[in-house]
């Protein structure tokens, strides 16, 4: 948290220093980072490997697009879309958490594929494979003009992503968040001391889905275009890779992993079509050499440094 203020300040100043395509790239990074962080809530803290995390993301995006089409002001469209994604996550979470492990992963994948199929086939409602276009970031009558421009939208995304990170961190450190970690560590133990594992899993799933809904709705407002592609199962794969690459159970790690993936995609795809190969190699190296991810490397380095600093002081104390 001690880096939060300088990092946010630097990002907020970015539009003054960067070219416009770089601001666009930065917006994309922030949205994908929020998406990865949302998956970490269930994957890192509850060890629930959802293979269908695109579902709340895509539903959030489509709902936001519909709301913007209907002329809702941007913040209301986002709030409404998040509500839809959250409400949808409740029954899906309740059903999926009846299983665990691989069965849970397959159930979530099945629900996401169902969502993809509906969006793809229901031409009259969702525009089918063409997707939805022709909507704008509506300022509305409440004076939200500032968020309409590209830079303004970047700032909106920055504020929202930071606020969601702050909320998620608070949730994970709360009594409930710690109980969820307990369930992850030992389900039998957690129920022996009076926690209900299933309910806590559903909560983790729904919080995770709600945050993904925020990311999805920001995505719709960003591109002003949604298509079934955003519900494609490979997206669920990308976001899992981002979480593992960055380091599960840290919230900030997955955001860094996500940034790396977007940047790599952007830089490498200009050089070669087979850029996923490079990401794949990096992924394999991280999983083998640093199972706690990139943020885990940083954390263990920091621990080693503080240990080295503490030791001389401790020896002095022992000598006196």
């Amino acid at each position, binding site marked *: 948290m001690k880096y939060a203020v300088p990092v946010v300040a630097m990002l907020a100043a970015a539009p003054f220093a960067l070219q416009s395509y770089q601001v666009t790239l930065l917006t994309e990074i922030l949205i994908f980072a929020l998406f990865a962080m949302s998956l970490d809530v269930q994957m890192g803290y509850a060890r629930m490997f959802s293979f269908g995390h695109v579902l709340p993301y895509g539903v959030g995006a489509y709902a936001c697009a519909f709301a913007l089409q209907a002329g809702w002001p941007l913040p209301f469209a986002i709030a409404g879309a998040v509500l839809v994604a959250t409400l949808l996550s409740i029954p899906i979470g309740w059903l999926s958490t009846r299983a665990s492990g691989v069965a849970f992963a397959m159930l979530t994948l099945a629900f996401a594929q169902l969502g993809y199929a509906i969006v793809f086939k229901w031409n009259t409602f969702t525009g089918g494979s063409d997707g939805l276009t022709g909507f704008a970031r509506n300022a509305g009558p409440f004076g939200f003009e500032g968020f309409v421009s590209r830079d303004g939208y970047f700032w909106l995304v920055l504020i929202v992503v930071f606020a969601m990170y702050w909320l998620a*961190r*608070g*949730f994970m*450190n*709360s*009594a*409930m*968040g*710690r*109980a969820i*970690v*307990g369930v992850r*560590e*030992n389900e*039998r*133990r*957690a*129920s*022996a*001391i*009076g*926690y*209900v*594992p299933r309910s806590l899993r559903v*909560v983790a799933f729904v919080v995770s889905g709600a945050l993904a809904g925020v990311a999805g709705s920001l995505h719709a407002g960003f591109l002003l275009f949604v298509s079934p592609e955003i519900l494609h199962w490979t997206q669920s794969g990308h976001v899992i890779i981002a979480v593992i690459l960055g380091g599960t159970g840290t919230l900030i790690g997955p955001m860094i992993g996500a940034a790396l993936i977007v940047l790599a995609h952007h830089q490498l795809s200009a050089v070669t079509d087979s850029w996923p190969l490079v990401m794949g190699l990096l992924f394999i190296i991280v999983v083998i050499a640093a199972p706690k991810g990139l943020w885990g490397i940083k954390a263990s380095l920091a621990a080693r440094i503080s240990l080295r600093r503490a030791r001389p002081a401790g020896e002095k104390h022992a000598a006196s």
Partner: protein
Amino acid sequence: MPLLECSGLTKRWGAVTTVDDVSLTVDAGEVVALIGPNGAGKSTVFNLIAGAIKKTAGAVRFAGESVEHLSAYDLAQKGLSRTYQITCLFPQLTVLENVRLAVQARSPGRLRPMASKAFVDKTQAAAMEWLARVRLADCANRTAGQLSHGDQRLLEIATALALQPKLVLLDEPTQGMSVEETRATVRLLKSLLEDAPIAVLLVEHDLEVVFGVADRIVVLDQGRKIADGNPEAVRNDPAVQRAYLGVAHA
């Protein structure tokens, strides 16, 4: 009215009857030990009470209420906590967090979704007190998995007591401990139980532990209850001596 009342507990696995019509009671604040030779059905009785396995027949009442269909977390909320024969902790979490989660489970706001430093401080302080009482305060910040086996058993006892239960089911608390550790644990258990109005049902095959802490002893042999009384009476009971010394049933 007894705190825990089991009547006619029976468990059959196919043709094999491991527990046969066992009735026992535990009063509030009483320490009852359940003993018997290997295979007598001690652990099965224990798991029937805790609801971990389904009974063939019989009834379990806790604090006057039937607890037939309650799950482990409902029992814990009602004041019946247990330890496991095979250590069951949060091995990756710190020793402190292991106990703190138990303290939290019995606190108002146990599932608050927003972080609160005051709440964490309060539950941590209470957890530290429990750790101090089992003399594990020095290891508070190590992960539970790093503790020695004996210390893990103590941590499990501390966690069970931190739930402030009316009744604790202790499943072989000194299992796998050395003789010295066992004696220390017995002393510790006695001191812990002296200043807390907690009833205990103890399964143990170490007779030194049993005679050291129990107010009353229930003896099982081949799934049946063969004795129930104070330690002195049980020690002199010919049926018990037969069961333990392996004399053929006359």
